[in-house]
């Protein structure tokens, strides 16, 4: 319990502290320190959960499903803060923003971590909503940090689209509470997930289906499901690179986590009716649509960060499809995919940050010859893209393979679409990547001071997870699979 409270509230304390720190250099180090403390607390919490099972109390709930997401969030937060310290110094020096902007950045970074950790660990669906909305609000000003017209437009789109989406999710939550109030023994626990999960079969199916539609559209906007994805490429590409890394790597996961938690309730409620898999079908539909559309859009991109954000949409679509498919195999694959995608995508964005620093631009047409200018950046970008495209022996290959196996078993025709989409995305990514990494080096391009340790760490983890998933992690994911689908994989 102490570890949990420390983990959730350390970022809040950090935010308050960073509001007072004036110098940029010191703020960077304080940021790193707070994130490290958070990560340590998360590890402690994970150890507690492994020992005791589910930890509940004070409207928090940490079970096998969200504990590894909590550790992942804290870890990526920590590595990103390590990357962001020198990177934001460079950004500040190059005049894109000023000292006040930097203070805002650091405060909002920690507030963002706080809201995400709160969303992941809360048991109350209302607080989940408040935290997800809070995460949106915390990052909105950061997307427009550079104050260019494009950045302001991206931030406005992000704010409005996500705000509307979240409002619809609130209506879904109200409907859920309405359904719960009539069957739950203690009305004060009407929004508590644990209680609702126990009595899920008693919840009225018609109201739950309506609520789920609203919740899926609402939280799905934040996941980046097509056609509610319009804000994602803009917001992820116009904000500062560390922000893109955490948005892509973490916030999308949190939104998907919310969707899956709610799907568990709806499945329980619909289990006795004539269409028990409605939620699954909806998820599969949106997921497949996002996956295919994003893969196609990848080809048209001219901005490197936009291209990778479409890749994020594509992978989130894949994960949504997998969760919709249901069954232990697909769910295990989806959980693993959440893990490796976050690690790989944040590593890629960090590398992209360095690449744009080298080339001085985000436009794909003008980034060339990275591997010759700074081999570390070039090679790691190449390896990162190979990882995200699903090359063995990286972890993404493992999870995609599991998903394909599950699809062949239950919905064979979708395999064609999946494979096609994977090929299209792969082609798009490499088509754009090749000239960037191997092209002729432009005049005057020089290597920059770049700390590639976070990237190596992430990619190394992804490689390890692909080659041989450690036993404890596999058992951990298996327990999460059992929680979600009711059946073991291993």
């Amino acid at each position: 319990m102490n570890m949990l409270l420390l983990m959730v509230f350390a970022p809040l304390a950090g935010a308050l502290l960073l509001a007072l720190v004036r110098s940029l250099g010191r703020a960077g180090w304080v940021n790193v320190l707070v994130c490290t403390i958070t990560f340590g607390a998360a590890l402690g919490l994970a150890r507690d959960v492994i020992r005791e099972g589910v930890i509940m109390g004070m409207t928090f709930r940490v079970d096998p499903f969200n504990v590894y997401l909590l550790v992942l969030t804290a870890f990526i937060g920590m590595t990103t803060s390590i990357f962001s310290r020198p990177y934001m110094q460079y950004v500040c020096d190059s005049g894109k923003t000023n000292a006040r902007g930097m203070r805002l950045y650091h405060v909002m970074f920690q507030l963002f971590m706080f809201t995400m950790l709160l969303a992941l660990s809360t048991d109350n669906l209302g607080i989940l909503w408040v935290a997800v909305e809070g995460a949106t609000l915390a990052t909105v000003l950061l997307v427009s940090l550079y104050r260019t017209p494009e950045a302001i437009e991206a931030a406005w789109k992000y704010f409005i689209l996500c705000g509307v989406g979240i409002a619809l999710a609130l209506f879904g939550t109200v409907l859920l509470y309405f359904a719960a109030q009539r069957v739950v023994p203690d009305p004060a626990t009407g929004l508590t997930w644990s209680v609702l999960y126990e009595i899920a079969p008693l919840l009225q199916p018609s109201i739950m289906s309506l609520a789920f539609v609203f919740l899926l559209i609402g939280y799905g906007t934040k996941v980046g499901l097509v056609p509610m994805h319009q804000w994602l490429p803009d917001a992820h590409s116009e904000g500062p690179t560390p922000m893109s890394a955490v948005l892509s790597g973490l916030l999308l996961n949190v939104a998907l986590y919310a969707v899956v938690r709610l799907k568990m309730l709806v499945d329980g409620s619909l289990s006795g009716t004539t269409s028990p898999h409605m939620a699954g079908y909806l998820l599969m539909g949106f997921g497949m649509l996002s996956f295919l559309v994003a893969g196609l859009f990848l080809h048209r991109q001219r901005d490197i960060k936009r291209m990778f954000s479409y890749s994020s949409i594509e992978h989130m679509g894949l994960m949504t499809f997998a969760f919709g498919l249901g069954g232990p195999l697909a769910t295990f694959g989806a959980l693993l995919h959440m893990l490796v995608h976050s690690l790989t995508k944040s590593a890629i964005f960090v590398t992209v940050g360095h690449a744009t620093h080298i080339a001085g631009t985000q436009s794909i047409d003008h980034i060339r010859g990275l591997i010759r200018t700074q081999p570390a950046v070039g090679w790691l970008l190449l390896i990162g893209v190979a990882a995200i495209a699903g090359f063995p022996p990286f972890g993404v290959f493992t999870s995609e393979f599991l998903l394909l196996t599950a699809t062949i078993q239950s919905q064979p025709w979708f395999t064609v679409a999946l494979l096609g989409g994977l090929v299209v995305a792969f082609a798009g990514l490499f088509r754009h990547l090749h000239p960037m990494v191997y092209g002729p080096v432009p005049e005057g391009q020089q290597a920059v001071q770049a700390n590639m340790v976070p990237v190596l760490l992430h990619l190394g983890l992804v490689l390890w997870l692909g080659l041989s998933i450690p036993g404890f992690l596999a058992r951990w994911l298996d327990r999460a699979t059992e929680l979600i689908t009711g059946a073991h994989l291993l």
Partner: protein
Amino acid sequence: MSLDHLSLLEQLMLVLAAIALFTSFILLEQARLVASIHAFAWQGALAAAVTTVVAASGGHTHLYFSAVLTLCLKALLIPWMLHRLVRKLELDRQIEPLRHPALVIMFAVALVIFSYWLVLPMVQQELVFTRNIVAVSLAIVLIGLLMMVVRQQAVVQVLGFMSMENGLFLAAVSATGGMPLVVELGVAFDVLVAMVLFGVFFFQIRESIDSLNVDRLNRLTERTEEER
């Protein structure tokens, strides 16, 4: 006619909810910005009044607190903040007429009918007197959404967003007798922070494109990429 079975307070609640729906329509069509802000303030006040009536007739004491919170936030604080922003942005006298007002109003009426149909299964089961208001609150949410779609001025879009939140609050009160207080406080806090951020945004947008017509925020498209 089931109205005969309802007490006077409950009939009053229906009347207030119907007037709140009417203010939605006013918000949708009103060309003058300051008048829109006043209409929004009235909508917030009406939502608070409905909450008070529900609290009085149902005996939920925590709803009184919600009502006061909504009144202070939605009827007083946020309109005041918007007024101040409008004055600072020098938009007091601006008029932004709606194109195709007749079509938009017809679509809004269609949305009212749609939301009624949507909550019909919910409504048919409950015996609580507030059930009919759920359709009205969903209609207010959807009309707020319509407002954000058809209007191009940034401040008016924010009014549409806030009107959606009004509708959601009314839905929570009417369908469930109010969400738990913690959640209500969280939502209110989020709305307040959103309002503050919107205020910051108006200035940023105006600095960058020198107008608050958000249709002019159109540099980030797929086409632009090729021209660069």
